[in-house]
């Protein structure tokens, strides 16, 4: 209850925002299609196979990758597992309650999952050790440390960066089908870098990377993930409002264009992370 009341949008802020957006600007001084500064710290959690701490504006997210052996699903006996979870930790916001993930956190995890899975960045069939018996399970766990708008992109960049930089034990299979850790460490094989770009509609205008204030005012939201320069591989429209056809095609173009810039940032951060180690 208090939570609901406290998220009442100030009329002042809304009016000010609409006025500024109508002039092609944002309250924080950005252009309509500018992202906030992104910083990515690779390898923050030494005990994880891969990890990344991402700051997008004042949103802060950490993702950890754990790779363990497990049993495959019955319907995909020859494929490894990819499991993505997300939790908005109660340290992250006055409105985040401790407890099992709510609707929003589950949507967050599933949208990140879709970007990873559908882009084909990880070939799950390569994670099969013994068909029907033993495969590798890749867990990507996302913890939101500070809520500051656009969790989708921050969570996605953290998950992708953690996966791209992940290292794991090399396993071998004996003649009798026994799985053994060889003691060697290899990189998790990833093919490409999917990048999500989240956009919001404010006063019929599309903006990229909404802040918390903008999310309180936006009428609709869309996340489009690109697998590379020309392929879109995952999408999620959210909020009670809608988009026009023109806005949807504009969003698709914007995701591809903006995605390429973020892809370079992720690549550079991973490279820097490698050197550090």
């Amino acid at each position, binding site marked *: *209850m*208090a939570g609901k009341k406290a998220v009442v949008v100030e009329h002042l802020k809304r009016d000010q925002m609409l006025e500024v957006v109508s002039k092609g600007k944002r309250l924080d001084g950005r252009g309509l299609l500018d992202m906030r500064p992104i910083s990515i710290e690779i390898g*923050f*959690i*030494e*005990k*994880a196979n891969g*990890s990344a701490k991402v700051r997008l504006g*004042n949103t*802060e997210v*950490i993702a*950890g*990758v*754990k790779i*363990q052996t497990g049993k495959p699903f019955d319907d995909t006996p020859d494929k490894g597992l990819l499991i993505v*979870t997300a*939790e908005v*930790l*109660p*340290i*992250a*916001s*006055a409105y985040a309650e*401790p407890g*099992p*993930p709510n609707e929003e956190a589950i949507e967050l995890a599933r949208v990140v999952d879709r970007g990873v899975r559908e882009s084909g960045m990880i070939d799950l069939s390569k994670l099969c050790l013994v068909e029907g018996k033993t495969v590798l399970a890749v*867990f990507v*766990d996302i*913890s939101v*440390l*500070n*809520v*500051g708008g656009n969790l989708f992109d921050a969570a996605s960049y953290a998950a992708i960066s953690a996966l791209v930089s992940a290292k794991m034990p090399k396993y071998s299979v004996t003649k009798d089908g026994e799985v053994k850790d060889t003691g060697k460490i290899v990189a998790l094989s990833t093919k490409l870098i999917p990048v999500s770009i989240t956009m919001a509609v404010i006063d019929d205008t599309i903006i990229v990377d909404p802040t918390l204030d903008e999310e309180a005012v936006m009428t609709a939201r869309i996340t489009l993930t690109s697998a590379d320069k020309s392929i879109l591989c995952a999408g999620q429209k959210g909020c009670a409002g809608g988009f026009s056809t023109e806005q949807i095609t504009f969003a698709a173009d914007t995701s591809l264009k903006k995605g390429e810039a973020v892809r370079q940032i992720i690549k550079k951060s991973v490279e820097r992370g490698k050197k550090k180690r």
Partner: protein
Amino acid sequence: MSNLVNSKGLRQDGRKLNELRPIKMEVGVLENADGSAYIEFGKNKIMAAVYGPKDVHPKHMSVPDRAILRCRYHMTPFSTDTRKNPAPSRREIEISKVIREALEPTLILTDYPRTAIAVYIEVLQSDGGSRCAGVSAASLALADAGINMTDLAAGCAAGKIAGKVALDLDDTEDKEGDADMPLAILPNLGKVTLLQLDGKFTRKEFEQAFNLAKDGCMKVYELQRKALTEKYFGKGEVEA
């Protein structure tokens, strides 16, 4: 025989028996929280946040003449060697309780009637002694939130490895050692507000370990003071 202590009396990570792991603390690390702190204690990486005083929900839980204190100690799934299920375990629920009871004596809760103060401790990476590090971080977060307190709480453990009493056990020492005794003290009030014991001590070893842990807590307290000073007083510029 255990190889936790070598012939020179050094531990696996090169520490002496009475030596702490490297410690780093920072106050005011989270934007949304009313108070926050980050601590690295060896390989432990822990964030603590305080929200409140705030309205109590459900309302009938509120107490007319003081604030209620809530505390959650939680480990992220990637914080442990083997992935941890995100749902709170019985261990985490118990630790949440003893941490709450370690912190409560430092707070003047009667100054905030009918409200709740929530303390959240998130273990991002764990390496033995996370509850003690968690108490120390949480206490800093409470001071950062500006809640009236009579003292800070500082935590540190001592235990027994290879038959010898040792300060501040890491994960391996905790698992392979003989005993572990986490402690939290209020340095100015001279009170022990958290004590658990897991393993066998003789009466003499118990006292040795207790005194060693207490010394460790005092060292932690000095680092807590330093962290608060850095955040609030900068280089100590005093306006004339």
